[in-house]
């Protein structure tokens, strides 16, 4: 078998030599090492090192436990908790019944029954609005999809129930969640943007277009 002769001398060989010296101790070292390891074995050195670690953890007692029902962690700002329906500051529901949340939902949690607002044929609202929270995976796509920001994600997460039918929420329940979680409400859109002209017959409280 022909060996690569370049390996016998040259830079590579020096490197190998150095490595060998580092890796392979000579005989005196070997005896010392084995003696040391032998002493370590019979005195249970490693076990005592481990027991020192556990003892130091006991003496420097800093538990990472959070006593959950009594103390709760601070949730991050973008926490995605229970879903809720929101209102404007005058108490009108934001939802316009456009069904976009229903379309966006990957788990088919939401069911919207849309209807015209009585006496205002240009406006629509959600006559019925159901959420089956047993299926919700809290992705937040419905909140993103909503064109009027009628959906919000609260910071509630303690929604364990004994009967899972209690997680099938209707519009009133969702509005109630929104009422208690978002006490500060937005103004109506047209009032938020006073410099934008809203030419719509539905806005009866706005000055009408001169005719």
């Amino acid at each position, binding site marked *: 078998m022909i060996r690569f002769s370049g390996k016998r001398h040259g830079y590579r060989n020096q490197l190998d030599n150095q490595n060998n010296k580092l890796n392979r101790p000579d005989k005196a070292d070997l005896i010392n090492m084995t003696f040391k390891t032998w002493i370590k074995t019979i005195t249970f050195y490693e*076990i005592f090192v*481990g*027991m020192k*670690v*556990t*003892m130091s*953890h*006991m003496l420097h*007692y*800093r*538990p*990472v*436990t959070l*006593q959950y029902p009594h103390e709760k962690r601070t949730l991050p700002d973008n926490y995605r908790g229970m879903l809720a329906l929101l209102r404007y500051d005058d108490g009108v529901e934001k939802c316009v019944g456009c069904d976009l949340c229903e379309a966006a939902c990957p788990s088919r949690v939401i069911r919207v029954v849309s209807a015209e607002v009585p006496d205002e044929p240009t406006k629509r609202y959600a006559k019925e609005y159901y959420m089956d929270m047993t299926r919700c995976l809290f992705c937040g796509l419905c909140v993103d999809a909503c064109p009027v920001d009628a959906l919000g994600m609260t910071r509630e997460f303690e929604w364990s129930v004994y009967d899972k039918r209690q997680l099938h929420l209707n519009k009133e329940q969702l509005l109630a969640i929104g009422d208690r979680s978002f006490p500060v409400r937005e103004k109506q859109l047209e009032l938020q943007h006073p410099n934008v002209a809203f030419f719509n017959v539905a806005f009866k409280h706005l000055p009408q277009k001169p005719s």
Partner: protein
Amino acid sequence: MTELSLRLAVSFAQILAEMSIVMITVATMTYFERKVLGWMQDRMGPMEVGPYGLLQPVADGIKLFFKEDIVPAGANRAMFALAPMLTMVVSMIGFAVIPFGPNMTLDIFGLTIKPFVVADINIGVLYILAIASIGAYGIILGGWASNSKYSLLGGLRAAAQVISYELNVGLALVGVLLLAGTLSLVEITEAQAGGFWHWFIWGGRPDGFFPIHTQIFAFVVFIISAVAETNRIPFDLPEAESELVAGFFTEYSGMRFAFFVSAEYANMTLVSCVASALFLGGWNAPYPGTIFEYVGLEQLAWVEHIVWFAAKVYFFLFLFIWIRATLPRLRYDQLMRFGWKVMLPIALANIIITSIMLYFFPRS
């Protein structure tokens, strides 16, 4: 006849007191173990029941008492019922020969009794070894009678393990028996009076300080074998929860499960008592005499003795928990190799060396 009945009554009272002490220790240990394990693992342990979870043993006891008692289909009902009782009884009666306090006598109703030891029999060590071996039967029976593969494997492991390590326990004690020249635990403890250098772990002669008859190797062998014999981590193969669900008591529930668990803690306490009585001087303080004697309260010296005994026993119990918090479980072949190829030769060599040293340097 009246004397016999009186004697029976006194013995019964002693047994009752001893058993309640052991049961209180067991209850304390269940709480203490969870707490200390929690502290060592940066947790809190039980915190909910009572202040700092102090009532957790009570809550556990009530819960286990009212739990449904399930006997698995196909189980041997008689054996299944017998196993926890056997384990429990055996772990309890071992305490009969343990001297909790000094070897003083008390005269009541014309009877002379020893208040701190239930039965000072002259084969105490032999009795404890015999009783501890019977304890293995409970485990094996429980594993076999459950009609479950996990239980059976646990029982088989327990059989092999307890037998191999029982041998080392016995051989480790021989050195101490050679030094003391007796099998009675009371007399062995009395032979170690007068300072920690007379304890058999150090082994100084009564007239000297030099540790010429040291039993420290026997002590280490005894402690390791005791951990293995009580099926504690790192030798908890019979109930290896990550491999065998719960080992031999997988199928047990309710009070029968509680019996197994409290028997485990009682066994721990028993081996701790034996270790402190045989190697660490039992009730003797590490200094000659007692402080109460020095200040002139000889009548109260027994309090100090009992405190020292309890301190030693609780040190060993803490050691058990500490080891549990530190070490992982051994593999089965490692366990067997360690027992037969390491512990056994050390114990045998210890006997030979102790005998030779005793021959050339007799103790008195």
